[in-house]
């Protein structure tokens, strides 16, 4: 592949995955069945993983697939199936027409607002930090590892506590207590 097509190629794929993410997320919110919705969400996450890789965040992209699409969503599906919520028949899931309309309006307003925000002449320090002269990352794991194990070491360690707490919490909560 010649380099001169690279930007085009890149852009094409970028938009492709972007549209995929958009479309599958739209499909996700409109599905009635939780299983279907979950599958569409997985699709969204895959598309996002692709975008991450294209944005030079290969490690994050891999993690996205492994953790999100792989682990978290599996848990979701697992729960859906455990609780036997597969069929939406008994669920009065969706709001009414007006509710959906209003929600759509709110969503659009939010998008518009976010767009306007990036374009507003607001003091940029409030919106974005000042651009630093940090060299662009090469996508190697090392460039993530460096801040993570230096600057954010404490936070990193604390996540282990968080995870431990979450595990214990999940075990305690999900345990059958009404056995007595």
């Amino acid at each position, binding site marked *: 592949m010649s380099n001169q097509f690279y930007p085009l190629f890149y852009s094409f794929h970028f938009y492709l995955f972007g549209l995929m993410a958009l479309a599958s997320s739209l499909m996700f919110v409109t599905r009635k069945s939780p299983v279907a919705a979950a599958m569409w969400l997985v699709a969204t996450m895959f598309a996002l993983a692709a975008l991450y890789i294209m944005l030079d965040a290969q490690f994050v992209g891999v993690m996205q697939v492994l953790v999100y699409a792989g682990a978290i969503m599996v848990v979701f599906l697992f729960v859906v199936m455990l609780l036997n919520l597969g069929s939406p028949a008994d669920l009065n899931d969706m*709001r009414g027409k007006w509710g959906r309309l209003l929600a759509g309006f*709110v969503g659009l*307003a*939010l998008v518009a*607002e*976010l767009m*306007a*925000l990036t*374009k*507003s*002449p*607001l003091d940029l320090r409030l919106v974005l930090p000042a651009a630093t002269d940090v060299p662009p990352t090469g996508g190697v794991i090392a460039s993530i590892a460096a801040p993570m194990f230096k600057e954010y070491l404490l936070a990193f360690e604390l996540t282990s506590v968080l995870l431990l707490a979450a595990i214990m919490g999940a075990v305690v909560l999900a345990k059958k207590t009404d056995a007595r």
Partner: protein
Amino acid sequence: MMTVPTSGTHALASTVAQFVWLLPLLPLIGFLINGTLSLLAVAKLGPDDPSAAGHDAHHDDHGHDHDHGHHAARHKFAGIVSLVGPGVLLLAFALAVAIFVAMRGVEMHEPYLLTLFQWMPVGDLHIDAALQLDPLSMVMVLVITGVGSLIHIFSVGYMQDDPGYPRYFAYLNLFVFFMLLLVLGGNYPLLFVGWEGVGLCSYLLIGFWFSEKANADAGKKAFIVNRIGDFGFLVAMFLLFANVGSLDFAGVAENAGKLPFGGVVITAICLFMFLGCTGKSAQIPLYIWLPDAMAGPTPVSALIHAATMVTAGVYLIARSSLLFSMAPVASLTVAVVGSLTALFAATIGLKQWDIKKVLAYSTVSQLGYMFIGVGVGAYTAGVFHLVTHAFFKALLFLGSGSVIFAMHRAYHATHNHDDAQDMRNMGGLRKYMPVTWTLMWIATLAIAGIPPFAGFFSKDEILGNVFARAHGSMLSEVTWLGVPGGTVLFVVWGLGLASALLTAIYMTRMMLYTFHGPNRSGQAEQGHLAEAPWIMTGPLVVLGIASAAGGWLNLPELIPIGPIGALEKWLEPVVGVATKRIAGTEGHESVSTEQMLIGIAVAIAVVGITIAITRLKPAALVTKKESPASTGFARVLEHKYFVDEGYDAAIIQPTVATSRVVLWKGVDVGLIDGLMVNGSALAARALGWLGSQLQSGQIGTYAWVLLIGVIALLSAFTKYH
């Protein structure tokens, strides 16, 4: 004792008078000893842990039958109490006589002031605990300790079987202490200490047999009614301090002249002070407590409610003569109220059946006389009547005490539960109690105003002075409520004469019903009626002599059978200025007028006695149980014009009801607590309920609210092009 005489240069300072502080101290010591004994005798300490030991742990009946003392055994401390109680009084009397003798030996231009310590020194207010000795207080001290001693001795017999014997003497001693403080106090606040203190002791002694509600009620009533008067006294002191700048007698005498003569201020001071006197000395409108006060032991009635405490108002006005002589309107008010009280009480006295109630209304009436005296500026005459009244009224009360004592014993012996004080149950007691009979007739003649007994001189002097002041004196010049002062005084004189007539009638009535005619106490009782023991009749004899001869203290010029006007001369340093100011220069009547006045007075007394003897038929009386209820005006009189009932319905019940229904239940519980306090709590709770309604628990709703909020905030902070 911190005895730092401030007027060390006074002629009395080197005499026995420097021990004047011993006078009140002696009865105080007596009080402490007797009070301690009283508590020691009855006290039974409780268990260490009262909440652990149930209150029903022991049920021994204490046998506290306080019913007029019929316990066979005397009190275990009776001996020492009988010694200490009257003993301190006799010592005080001896000291008083010694001081009196010393005082006669020196010129009393100014009072002897003994400052013990500073009491309330605040800023420009200086109130010392200072005793003041001058002729006026000397007279009072002699009366108090002298008559007081006799009554204490009488009490030894009268109260001998009472289980509260030491308590009785403790109260009595305490009373004398406060009474001496009252007359010896060197300033108004200290006088007020005594003033309230005697009221307190009166309260305690009226309610001495507290297990009966009526007695406790009477004590309470006396205290509260007196407090109304004390309110007036307090305000008078505030006015004095604010306008004169001092509360010492000396300071007031010095600075009172700066106040405008007859002005609003001085009149207000005197009127408020007189309000205090109407309370303490049982004048209209506050006289109502005194008849009820007869619920106390009879010697108490003699000492407190006849001889000493109730005359404190007269003393106060005599003491403040300088002020009153500057306020003619107030002085006339005193005279008018005094005369009205004299007549009013005398009419009630006509129809009372309780022997003590007769004497009580008689006392109110005689106090009215004294106020007529001090009201018209005849301060000496007022004090003179105070002294003679102390003699013959104490005698009358003690005599009636003897009678009641005898009746009681008789009833007790036969287990009769009749009323031992009702005259309808007596009659013909002359046969059984000749000594008492004789002495009480002396007193009756004295109070009726028959010469040469004491009451004649003092009463005549008062009426003569009223007549004299009715024209050509300072008082006759002013108008009182639109009426010329002279006219007012003539009316007062007329009222005085009328009540003199009534006095003669009701006193004779009392004597007739009690001692004459057939005996109505019952066949069985007659065998038990007897004269009281010598310890009770002894004091009676002394008082009888005093009642008969008391007139010699202040003989008028017309009757020169001894020193003329001794009391007048004695009191001259104290009340002379004020008397002269009111009487003006041409004070004396012509001899013929005076003779006429004396003639009228004696004639009225004789007429009164005659009316009573001829019109009343003791033989026709029936006992209390058999008497029909009286009707018409007699009923009104018997019920004392229904004044008590009127006060109760007009003042007491409305006050209590308003306090309970409007103030407490309405304002406190309803308005403040209900509406404001609990109302605001309710409002807060309502607001909280409203807020909690937003907390639907619906996560969806929360999300909506959150999102809308986010958008609103974002749009608020975004600057658009």
